[in-house]
Structure formats: C-alpha cells, structure tokens
C-alpha cells in the first residue's frame, strides 16, 4: 500500500465506500459503477482516481474500458488496524480485570 493516510481520507467519503462495497462483489467498469449511484461518469471517475491514488483499487486496460477491482492488500491493511483497535479494547480490558484481581489478592497475602 502506498500511504495509509491517503487510504483513510479516501474512505471518509460515503460514495467511495459504496464503490468499494460494490467492488467487493467483483470487478466493474465506470459505466457499471455510475448506474446505481445516479452519478455522472466523470464524477465516478474522479472518485476512482482518489481510490486508485490511495492504493485501494487497481485498474486494468481491456480495449477502451478500464475495469476496476479492489486491491486486497490495501483493504486488509486497514482492516487489521481497525480490528485490532476494536477487539483489542474489549478483550484487553477483560484480561485487565483478571490482572487487577490478581494484584489485589497478592496485596491481601502480603498484609499482616
């Protein structure tokens, strides 16, 4: 991935997240992407340029078309951080409860 900051900025836009959700189903052309979003092709192209610049999608050339697909590594990188943040918080604090209980019972033993 080129740049995680760029990836996060790219993901801040709801249309771009929707485009990524659509691409998660499979490769699509600009025309196919423009249809459900009720947006012009140039508008979609601008969003795709941002996503491509952030390393979130890749495009290939097929005749006059340039179909887009998700860059799996990019998504996985971001997911790893988010999953860590979320899961780590809940599980870590459950474990911390245990550590605190152990600390208190050790203190109890030391007391006369």
């Amino acid at each position, binding site marked *: *991935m080129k*740049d*995680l*900051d760029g*990836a*996060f*900025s*790219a*993901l*801040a836009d*709801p249309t771009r*997240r929707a485009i990524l*959700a659509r691409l998660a189903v499979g490769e699509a052309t600009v025309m196919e992407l423009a249809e459900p979003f009720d947006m012009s092709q140039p508008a979609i192209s601008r969003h795709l340029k941002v996503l491509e610049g952030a390393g979130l999608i890749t495009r290939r050339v097929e005749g006059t078309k340039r179909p887009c697909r998700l860059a799996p590594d990019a998504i996985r*990188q*971001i*997911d*790893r*951080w*988010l*999953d*860590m*943040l*979320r*899961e*780590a*918080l*809940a*599980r*870590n*604090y459950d*474990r*911390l*409860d*245990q*550590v*605190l*209980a152990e*600390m*208190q019972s050790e203190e109890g033993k030391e007391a006369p």
Partner: protein
Amino acid sequence: MSQLTLKTEGDTHVVVTRRFAAPPEAVYRAHMEPALLKKWLLGPEGWTMPVCINEAKPGGKIRYEWSDGKGGGFYLTGEFISLEPFRRIVHVERMHLPDATPDNHVETIFEPDGTGTLMTMRMTLPDSETRTAMLATGMEHGMEASYARLEETLEEEG
C-alpha cells in the same frame, strides 16, 4: 459489570470509558509496568507481546511488539508526553503494519469510582477524515448498535 463504551466527540476525538473493580493506583500501574502490560495488552486470543518497552517519564519511549506465534506480528511506537502517577497518562502512538498509521494522541484518566476506577481514554486523530474512516468502517463491521446505545447512555447520564 464493566461495559466498554466508545463514542465520538467533536470532529477528531474518540472517547472510550471502562470501569474497573480496583483502585486507580492498581489500574495505573497495570498501564505502566511492562510485566503487567504483557499480561493483558495483547489483542486477539493467542497473541503475545514479546517486546514491551515503556519508559515511564515525559519523553519516554513506548514500543510494544506483538506476535501471533505463527510468524505474524506488528508493532506500536509512541512517546509519553506527561504522566501524573495514578491519575493521568498523555501519550502519542502509532501502529506499524508495517506502514505507520496516522498519529493517535491519547489522554487516559483514572478517577476513583466507589471502591473502583472509572477510566476515560480520549483519542485525538489528526483530522476528521481519519476518524470518520475509522468509525465508518467500524460500523460496517456491525458496531453501529453499540455506538448508538452508548451515545444514548451518555446523553442520559448528561
């Protein structure tokens, strides 16, 4: 007892609260002493923290390295900005996956709450886009209900 809560504040903050059945001294120590940190700051099941550097002084370095035991892993680096023993920790951190995530500025406060502690951790992300992306993706993973519940809770508590 101690439900984790997570809510947004302003454009760039995320606030996490959690209650613990131990006094602030113990909760603070568990956040600062490597031997204790290694027991709980581990993330998903099965992960360990083979490296835990935690220089408990202003400007002190933080470096935590996690391993899944199967060759996978990543690390976090940061610096302490200020420390008030048993009450408040201010630090900056970033994950390396291996690319560094945007700097997360974190203030952690421990307040007495009955015989226990109320911890409030306030994260400040560099811009609203970073935070929006973080939370929006979180919601897509099914966190929306929790956030909503928590905002209600906080509104009720005033």
